[in-house]
């Protein structure tokens, strides 16, 4: 089975993202970059499939600036077989439907059986590209996937819903947006890291992909830190019952949430 995983390189989750001087984008200085968390689960899910069935190949692709190659190398180090970087002057500003179209061009060439990606990236938090890619390809998609089994023509996909999972069967190619994999994303072995360092990562220029332009874009007008919280009341000493009653009163009368 041939799997293609679409990933995005985003600021690592430990980074305290700060608003840049222009007030419209983040301050990228000192940011550690990594594969977006949900995308990492997608890579892991593909690799788990490969562990179970040696005939599986896992390819990864990303659309982004040159530094996104590091994210691809991380995926290779984890065990992916090949990686492609879609870059170029336009790649840095491509978003939404534009990205979906660029990825669709890669998919058309690679012809995978399934495309996986995280259900949303941790920079724009939109969760758009997965379904959009499916739409451009004209493929069905399943969101919030936690597992899949089966072979060509009959792939069962577990979709997380309230209270459990729905199992849907895909009889042809589909896009899966991943919520969580069975296991935590694996830590790459050192030989894996070394091999990945030496691996060739072909680059494709967005401009050369021949995608139609004219995708709508969101313009960031203002960016600011989240509304400051806290400065809340701390109830500390005193009788437990009194404190409990006081809290109920505050929630009822002051916060008006009870």
């Amino acid at each position, binding site marked *: 089975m041939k799997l293609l995983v679409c990933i995005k390189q985003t600021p690592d989750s430990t980074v305290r993202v700060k*608003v840049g001087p222009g007030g419209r984008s983040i301050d990228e200085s000192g940011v550690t970059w990594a594969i977006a968390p949900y995308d990492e689960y997608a890579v892991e899910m593909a690799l788990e499939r490969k562990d179970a069935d040696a005939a599986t190949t896992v390819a990864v692709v990303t659309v982004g600036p040159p530094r996104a190659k590091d994210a691809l190398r991380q995926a290779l180090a984890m065990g992916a077989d090949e990686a492609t970087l879609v870059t170029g002057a336009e790649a840095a500003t491509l978003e939404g439907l534009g990205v979906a179209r660029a990825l669709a061009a890669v998919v058309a060439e690679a012809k995978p059986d399934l495309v996986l990606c995280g259900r949303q990236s941790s920079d724009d938090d939109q969760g758009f590209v997965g379904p959009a890619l499916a739409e451009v390809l004209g493929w069905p998609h399943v969101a919030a996937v936690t597992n899949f089994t089966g072979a060509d023509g009959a792939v069962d996909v577990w979709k997380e819903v309230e209270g459990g999972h729905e199992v849907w069967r895909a009889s042809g190619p589909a896009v899966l947006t991943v919520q969580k994999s069975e296991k935590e994303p694996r830590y790459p072995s050192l030989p894996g890291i070394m091999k990945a360092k030496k691996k060739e990562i072909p680059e494709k220029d967005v401009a050369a992909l021949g995608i139609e332009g004219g995708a709508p874009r969101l313009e960031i007008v203002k960016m600011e830190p989240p509304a400051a*919280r806290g400065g809340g009341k701390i109830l500390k000493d005193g009788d437990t019952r009194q404190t409990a009653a006081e809290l109920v009163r505050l929630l009822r009368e002051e916060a008006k949430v009870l």
Partner: protein
Amino acid sequence: MKAWAVVERSPSGIRRVSLEVAAKAKDLGEASVLEVTGLARPSALPAVAALAKRAAEAKPDLVLVGATAGGRDLAARLAARLGWAYASEATGIAIDGASATVTRTMYAGKVRVTVKAPLPAVVSVRPGAFTLPQGAGEPQVEGVAASAADEPLAFQRFEPSAAAGGKVPLAEARVVVSGGRGLKGPENWKMVEELAGVLGAALGASRAVTDAGWRPNEEQVGQTGRTVTPDLYIALGISGAIQHLAGMTSSKVIVAVNKDPDADIFKVADYGVVGDLFEFVPAFTDEVRKAKARG
């Protein structure tokens, strides 16, 4: 300005977030409230096909959907099909001539942004972002017929969760009671469930306890779990690591109970109780029960 509100139904009626969205649509312009009908199980493709067809005829400027799991899925695909701008999890919308000014968060909730989306656009709306006006009844809903034949995937079965968490689903809960390591072990969750029961709340958990297998993964609130936006979030024995905060800081009111006065959760809590949660929670549950009984 023509605005659509696409509503979703739960077994007990139109979902609250859909009502909020419908009210907002009415606020913004000439509103139509639509519901996709004719599907035994909600699925994106048939709904998108039906709505896109209707959109081609009716030509709305803005389509609003409540940002439930299903809603986000539907909205994204619809926007792609129509080739329209898309913004997810809006906390505020205003129309400004030929664009919509949307406020939302980015970077896993670490920053707030105001973006301009050129109309026409599809926007999914965060539950609880818009308050329902008092005494608002159910809106007039137009059905949009969808055909299951448009769904190439074949539904096999539903598998309920083994340890199905609380009875209230986490995603759109108005109140969430969340437990962390401070509860010491899975056997102590009775207390959490009781409080949740009295409050009609969903159950949440920190990553530490879902990783340890104390609670099912579906309950995990945080960076790689769910992001929740309730009116009231009660964190019990949770220290407030960044990854957890990322999943709940947009809650309207945060209450934290922890024995460590220096716990980070107190930095974001609106009300904090420093003390032994094994003593406090039962007492608090009792007081809530009494207060609710009083009416």
